[in-house]
């Protein structure tokens, strides 16, 4: 298991190095870095100071060295718009994102696990068809539009729920549903298909022959195994979750990292965008590592394979 974890950690570090390199070269090669790094109203002194701190008159490899050292020291520059160190801004926004992402994931689990199991056990039944339709619709509906649709129905027409920003617990409802829908659809399809495989396997037949109740067979023997693919395909969901967080926070003016990413794009705030991407890569690396450990813990085939 240690070897597996170390291997995954190593892969994560390579990815992080790759992301940092790409961020650096895209910033240097596609335009004038001085223009990218400074706000439009910067003075001549600002320009000279920036050229000096980033070593922009030095050869490219030296500039890259300076950049890497800065990144390792947590110095990713100053935002044009907020005139504050970008890392500081990132950490001030992070808690807000960490308030809705887990909520959306819990919602997705609560919906997807029972629905996925029931539609596998009662294949072809009404519930199976209804949840299949929900999944297909959930995947086809773009997150940003779903958010706007929910605002239209629940805030504009019915007036039940607030449409933007944070505050009361009611403010969490629409963003959570918006972000969770994509996950519900994906999880549900995955749990259903892996349940179908498992229900057909030898150990389930044995459990039935032993005379275990159907509830024990399904919920105890099958569920644990059905959850493994959800974990192993985690990376696929991660991409969707990041996209989902960006558009959901944008739609609901939720002051988290997703909204910050959008602001960086809209205001062409390159230092901010660069920092968000690198910090996101670090976060994703940590989360993936935790998922890998959990995966190895749940599935002995991974833990014991050397």
């Amino acid at each position, binding site marked *: 298991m240690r070897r597996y974890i170390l291997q995954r950690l190593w*892969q994560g570090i390579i990815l992080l190095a790759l992301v940092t390199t790409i961020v650096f070269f895209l910033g240097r090669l596609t335009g004038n870095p001085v223009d990218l790094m400074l706000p439009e109203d910067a003075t001549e002194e600002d320009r000279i100071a920036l050229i000096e701190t980033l070593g922009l008159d030095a050869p490219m490899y030296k500039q890259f060295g300076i950049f890497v050292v800065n990144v390792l020291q947590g110095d990713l520059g100053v935002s044009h718009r907020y005139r504050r160190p970008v890392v500081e801004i990132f950490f001030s926004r992070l808690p807000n994102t960490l308030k809705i992402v887990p909520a959306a994931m819990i919602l997705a689990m609560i919906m997807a696990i029972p629905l996925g199991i029931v539609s596998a056990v009662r294949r072809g039944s009404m519930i199976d068809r209804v949840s299949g339709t929900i999944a297909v619709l959930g995947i086809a509906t*773009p997150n*940003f539009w779903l958010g706007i*649709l929910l605002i239209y129905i629940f805030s504009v027409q019915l007036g039940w729920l607030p449409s933007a920003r944070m505050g009361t617990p009611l403010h969490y409802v629409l963003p959570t549903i918006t972000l969770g829908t994509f996950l519900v659809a994906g999880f549900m399809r995955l749990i259903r298909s892996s349940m179908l495989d498992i229900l057909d396997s030898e150990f389930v037949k044995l459990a039935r022959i032993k005379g275990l109740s159907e509830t024990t067979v399904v919920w105890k023997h099958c569920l644990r195994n059905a959850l493994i693919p959800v974990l192993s395909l985690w990376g696929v969901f991660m991409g969707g979750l*990041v996209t989902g967080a960006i*558009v959901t926070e944008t739609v609901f003016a939720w002051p988290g990292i997703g909204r910050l990413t*959008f602001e960086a794009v809209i205001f062409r705030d390159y230092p901010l965008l660069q920092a968000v991407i690198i910090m*996101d890569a670090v976060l994703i690396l940590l989360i993936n590592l935790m998922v890998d450990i959990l995966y190895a813990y749940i599935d002995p085939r991974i833990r014991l394979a050397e």
Partner: protein
Amino acid sequence: MMRNLPWLSVGIIVAMLFMAIFAPLISPHSPIDQSLPEKLIPPVWEEGGTTKFILGTDIFGRDVLSRLFYGARVSMIVTALALLVGGGVGLVIGIVSGYVGGRLDSLLMRIVDAALAFPTILFALLLAVTMGQGLQTIVIAISLLLWARFARVVRGEVLAVKGRDFVALARVHGCSPMRIMATHILPNVLNTFMVLLTLHVGVVIVAEASLSFLGAGVPPPTPSWGLMVAEGRGKISSAWWLSLIPGIAITLVVLAFNLFGDWLRDRLDPKLRQL
């Protein structure tokens, strides 16, 4: 082959292609000319709507229906180019990686793993800021999202084909690896490739719409469905049609392509079901 064809999906897809191809002929108005006196007119069935603007007008007095038609065009062009570039690169890398094998294969698959592990939207946004918005940027950005998925599946398929007798025979016959890959391997993975293409149309349309929505897509005033949703967002309480109509278009088209893709997969390549 025609049995159980999802007719509704096919109908929506054909309608979308028709809108995209004939946009200049069927649009009642210009998609970009502004007319402020005629701004925010609701659709014809709402109070205050006129038959002149069937789906109403936006904040600049532009005809929503015409913008919808031209938006279909932008969606289709981006989708076709991104699938061509991203899918094509993935196909080539998948074939080479699978056929050549060894160190090259493990190196390429490591890169694929890395590409799949990182949310490509962040690179897409980075590209939009550094290279500037435009068709080229968005096609590159979406291709980055696609190539790794294609490469992985195609490689798996190549590994299965490679062990078959006719490939060994070709090798004994003295065919060069290039020739074997092009004439013996490629035709045998084309089915899988076609299924992958159809299954990813929806992915590309949503990606394009999402990037446009975030201000990193095709620059305004070119009408794109995602941009239309974004522009109408602030007016949701007074002019619902601005955001909701293009959103319905996106959802319907993506739904149609996904259902059609599922059908094609079941017909041509049922073992891809896990995708």
